[in-house]
């Protein structure tokens, strides 16, 4: 049983792509598709690496991350953030929220894989 990755993303095709890439590398990929209860899902089943989309239905990725870091003491949880919004202020927002890695869509598969490996080993 490899390390676990939790992917919170609402776009089915992207879920499929990332799942394919990571599971081929030996990761266990679990997915969740909305922002409403994302915090509870993470808390209930802490992954080794959390991949978080920004634009989620119900609650944005930033808010989810802030909540995890501030209210639930998840300061150590490695988080990789994916966003389709490429402006610099989005990166700032992500860093303020306490992200470990930040990747802009569209990404190369190798880039995501490297990032998840790094975060998983740390």
């Amino acid at each position: 049983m490899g390390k676990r990755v939790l992917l919170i993303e609402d776009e089915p095709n992207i879920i499929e792509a990332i799942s394919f890439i990571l599971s081929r590398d030996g990761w266990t990929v679990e997915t969740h598709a909305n922002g409403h209860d994302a915090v509870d899902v993470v808390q209930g089943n802490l992954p080794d690496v959390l991949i978080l989309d920004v634009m989620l239905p119900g609650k944005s990725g930033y808010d989810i991350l802030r909540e995890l870091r501030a209210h639930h003491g998840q300061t150590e949880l490695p988080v990789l953030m994916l966003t389709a919004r490429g402006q610099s202020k989005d990166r700032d927002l992500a860093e303020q929220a306490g992200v470990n890695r930040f990747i802009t869509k569209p990404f190369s598969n190798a880039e995501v894989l490297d990032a998840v490996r790094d975060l998983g080993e740390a």
Partner: protein
Amino acid sequence: MIALNALVAICLSYVAFLFAVAFVAERAARRGQVGWLRSPLVYTLSLSIYCTAWTFYGAVGYAARSGLEYITIYLGPSLVMLGWWWLVRKMVRIGRTQRLTSIADLISSRFGKSNLLAIGVTILAVIGTTPYIALQLQSVTLSFDVFAQASGEAEQLPSAIWVAIGLALFTVVFGTRNLDVNERHHGVVMAIAVEAVVKLFALMAVGLFVVWGIGGGLGATLEKIDDSEIGAWQVEGGRWAGLMLLSAAAFLCLPRMFQVMVVENDDEAHLRTASWAFPTYLICMSLFVVPIAVVGLDLMPAGSNPDLFVLTIPLSQGREGLAILSFLGGFSSATSMVIVAAIALSTMVSNHIVMPIWLRFTNSGAVVSGDVRNVVLLARRLSIVGVVMLGYLYYRLSGGGNALAAIGLVSFTGVAQVLPVVLGGLFWRGATRIGAFAGLTLGFSVWLFTLFLPSVGTGVVISTTVMEQGFFGWSWLRPQALFGIEGLDPLMHTLFWSLALNTIAFFGFSLVSFPTPLERLQGAQFVNIFQHSSSVRSWSPGVAQSEDLMVMAQRILGAGEAQALFSRAARKQGVSGNLPEPTPGFLELLERELSGSVGAATAHAMIGQIVGGMSVSVQDLMAVADESAQLMEYSARLKEQSDELSRTARKLREANQKLTRISVQKDAFLSQISHELRTPMTSVRAFSEILRDSGQLTEAEQTKYASIIHDEAIRLTRLLDDLLDLSVLENGQVSLNLRHDMLRDLLDRAAAAALADDDGSALRLRRDRALEDIPIYTDPDRLTQVFINLISNSKKYCEAETPELHIRVGQRGDLLSLDFVDNGFGISPEAQDVIFEKFARVSDQKAGGAGLGLAICRQIMARLGGEITYLKGEGGAAFRIDLPTNITVAAQ
């Protein structure tokens, strides 16, 4: 002895002669030959109407009764004329610049052209002059009487009424011949001058005869005087000073004196000559009074009337010629006074009483000037007759029994009530109309109660009871002992109380009341008449004037700007300090500056006020009023503009808020569009890398991943199509493909397209297909696109359990309206504002589109000549489409 008829004949020829003199003078004046008419000598002689029959007959009687006291009546006017520079000069200047017609006009004009005041003064003058006219009638009647008794024809006496009628006639003929603007009567003035010579000559002739013909020379006469019953100084101090004051006041205030001194004045320079010539005339008139009185007391039988010594002495000596000359002198004195007094009073009565009333009752008539002139002339004529007849009435009432001097003094005291108001008006800017009215009313009432009414005769108007016990039995209101102070000479008693109370009331009420603007303007005009009417050459140093200008300019321009202006001008003139010389150039500059703030006419008038060289006319005032009105209108317009500005500002603020909102939306859209583009790109890239890099993919996997790439590519294309579509629509570059079609067919096609990839159960359409049977000429493809968009939106966003969209069709003439109403929760009010803007999304939760659909719909509807709006209050989301059934008709 002279027959009475002969005397009447002499009188009539003398009057005829006067007529001739007046006529010739009048004609010469009309021809413009006024040189000799306007000599200082004529002016001085015309002033001599101060010396009436009272002087001619009464002075001798006065001297025979009270010694030298009579002389005070001439000392007062002498002082006034000797001191012409103080007062008379000012009165004449004001009278000429303000074109005053009477003493009433002077007062009314000074106190803001108050007609009430003018009426008051006029009534006062009429009442005050009435005894005086009576006195003249009495003297003429008495003089006839002397001749009648001498010739034994006493029963054929020409009564006073005939004298009155004759005088009225003469005055009417020469006093109202023409209605001159300047109110000058050359004929009358000339006749008066001739009469002045006649009376002086007559009195001096009698005097010389008395001194050298009877008295035996100067020394002998003086001795005789000292031996006589009035041979020692017996004048009471209070009366001496009081009478001097009274006569001076009367000289200034008598209506007839104002007439000859101010109204008939042709040239101010005449005053300079009159200042010594008139006192000389008075000296001559009073020189022989005491000798005649003493000789008369000596020669005439005891009990004979000393008022008539001037006549009776020559008669008793058999000098009939001298007696007739003396009679003519007295006649001249009487007639000239009555004539001028009647003219002066009739001017006042007609100008201040008759004309205002007439104009009020005939509102329209005033436009026709000829008409008014006739009315004025008629009013004057009637007034003249009225005034003379009033005098006659007084004469009849008083019974003609009083001494001439006593009547004259009663009259003087009444007229003197005007003095405080005149002096205050000429020298004190604080004098107000209310003060003047109070002073005049009080003074006049006191005079009426304490002197005039008692003078008519005890028991005639005021009963003996009142005289002895006071009004209402209040002892402090006894007519000749006001406030319980008894033992005063009645005349001095009245003079003191009336003038004192008059002055106190005048000043007191002036202090507490506030003048109207016109009063203040006129006050400044009168008090500073010499600064206003004099030429540029002035003794006042320029600095004082510049200071005044500075004070005024500061008030109008503000301190800083005014000081800058003045010091700039001073530097330019090379003058040290900050006050420039008031040169014409500087004044022009200042006037221009001021007129920018207060208007041209106002500025002109203000500078004129300070610098002089002009007087403010009614036209100036009208212009000032006009300017104020314009300024008010201007400020009203300014207010309007500022209101409009604030309305505009409010609109701008609203627009700005909207812009800000849109800008925020635009930012949000950029993120959104980026997201919408990158999301499909991400899938495309990820799966193409997988296909490229992973060798061992199953057939099924390969197909699946390839079709994902394909779908995402289509999604991208659709997004780009929408953007392009909107861009084209917004830029107006779209070309419409107009066709005839049926509304029902369009809706069918739209429903089919929008619900094609659906199982059909999710959204149910409710339509009334019968109503949709409407032919329509439009671009069917574009309209269908709008329908599709609305139906898809409903399909995507309607949250009801069994989503349902109701399409209602209505038609009003050429206008078609379609409502698309679903049964969901609708759109929040905040969102309703922006849903038609580009990039707006109704909800973040269902990221079905890029937020361009409704924006595109709106653009399409605008192209098709209609519009799409959100319908409020329908429960669910509701859109209304209005469009013409025939786009070409609508376009027209």
